[in-house]
């Protein structure tokens, strides 16, 4: 997991999706997630997934970053689908549900700085939980970097040898142990810094200014449309199922338009 690349995409991106307010993006995410939860139609789910890909292209999110993260849960979902689903089509539907929901979540994280994603949650949660949530993400950067450095150091000292798995495992475990000790020291240092800065409980996150209200409205309206489509197909499934192909077909048109628009912008 390249957490630095995720953060750089969220903070340095300048697309219309980055400029939408976090609240609008969280609402849009909630509606898309509801659509994924409600739908059991493999083609409607494929349509949602393609539409999300279209949005990601229009927002110029890096596919090399987005797609591996979105496909990661597919492995676990495939194991579950293989073992629990009654037939292949249901299994495919379960995997599509996982990928579509993951795609929506990752698009949110790739276009919104993490304090802004967690801020609404932090306001609702107890102080210790909300603040620790913010501290965790920050610590994750530091620990991943430290772990990477330790592994490089072990490799340079020939700690990892292909013919000696026990020695390699010992070296890797010591590196993890080293990260753990570093983590404990890091928490003590953070404690000192927070004490110096007069922390009394509740870290404050300032909401960004609303620069493009039209984008917010369009984003939420689009996601409401996706939910309405999904709910409609669920309620009137018997009548609408034969026409399910319309969902991926219209999403494909959207994908094509997004692709053309992104090519024009690049030129």
């Amino acid at each position: 997991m390249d957490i630095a690349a995720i953060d750089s995409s969220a903070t340095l991106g300048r697309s219309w999706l980055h400029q939408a307010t976090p609240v609008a993006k969280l609402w849009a995410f909630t509606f898309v997630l509801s659509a994924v939860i409600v739908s059991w139609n493999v083609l409607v789910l494929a349509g949602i997934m393609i539409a999300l890909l279209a949005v990601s292209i229009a927002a110029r999110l890096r596919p090399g970053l987005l797609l591996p993260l979105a496909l990661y849960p597919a492995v676990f979902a495939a194991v579950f689908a293989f073992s629990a689903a009654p037939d292949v089509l249901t299994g495919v539907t379960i995997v599509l549900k996982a990928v579509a929901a993951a795609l929506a979540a990752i698009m949110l994280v790739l276009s919104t700085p993490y304090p802004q994603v967690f801020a609404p949650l932090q306001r609702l949660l107890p102080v210790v939980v909300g603040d620790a949530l913010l501290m965790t993400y920050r610590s994750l950067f530091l620990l991943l970097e430290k772990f990477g450095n330790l592994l490089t150091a072990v490799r340079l000292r020939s700690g990892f040898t292909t013919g000696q798995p026990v020695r390699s495992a010992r070296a890797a475990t010591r590196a993890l142990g080293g990260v753990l000790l570093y983590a404990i020291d890091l928490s003590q240092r953070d404690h000192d810094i927070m004490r110096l800065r007069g922390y009394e409980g509740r870290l404050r996150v300032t909401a960004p200014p609303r620069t493009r209200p039209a984008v917010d409205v369009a984003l939420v309206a689009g996601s409401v449309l996706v939910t309405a489509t999904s709910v409609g197909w669920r309620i009137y499934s018997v009548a609408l199922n034969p026409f399910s192909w319309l969902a991926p077909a219209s999403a494909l048109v959207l994908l094509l338009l997004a692709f053309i628009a992104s090519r024009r912008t690049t030129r």
Partner: protein
Amino acid sequence: MSHIHIPDGVLPLWLWLGGWFVALAVVAVAARSAKGEDVRRKVPLLGVISALMLVAMSSEIIPIAYHINLTVLAAILLGPVLAPIAAFIVITILALLGHGGVTVIGLNTLVISAEMLVGWALFRAIVGLLGRNRVALGAVLATVLTLIVSTTLLVGIVWLGGSDAAGRETGALDPADLRFENPFAEGVFSVGLLDGGHGPEDEHAEDDDHDSARSLSVGRFAAVVFTLGPIGWILEALITGAIVGFISRVRPGLMFTGALADERRPIPGDETGTS
């Protein structure tokens, strides 16, 4: 495999919503108990230990669809009060990174919290029996037993959601009657958008057919989980045991009293406190 990698919308509404309510109640109680004078120490400690669990959980062992959790190790360091909070934080961040569903955050929190609490209690009991010299073995045994308990809990949740409950909640499984037709072949309004295009009796007949087909196979799921799981349990136990052994040699206080117990800072280079 100890927490639920089931996508959003597969488990019935009552189950995942119930999971959310119970998990939030558990986290609220834990947060209330954790609140006190040393809250400033607990917040950064929770942050780093949760981050450590995230580092472990983000690396998957592909052939067996398993990832290391380090839950028992985190529980030893954090203690039983902070464990549910760390579980909630880790699961929430993982869900936002697409790893695990948002709707199952509550159930996942409960499974991971149970894993941490059972792991902490077993570690203490086993080390009490074997003595402090066999702390690594204690951690290995505690981890394996804990993972057996949490995996059984996971299968129990799928059993709760996968039988009749899933049948009622998921509605018509559309893949079963998937066809490709032109919506405009008989005119735009003849598709019967408002009446569903079928009489109520026909609809119920189709629903009954779907109900029998859409149930999840809990037996097969349990068989897969209990076949692939042990490989992961052993790996996780060996890694946890090795780290616990290493830490107990370098800084034993952390293992036996937890990370919050000692406010004394170790002198760099003299972590064992011998000089």
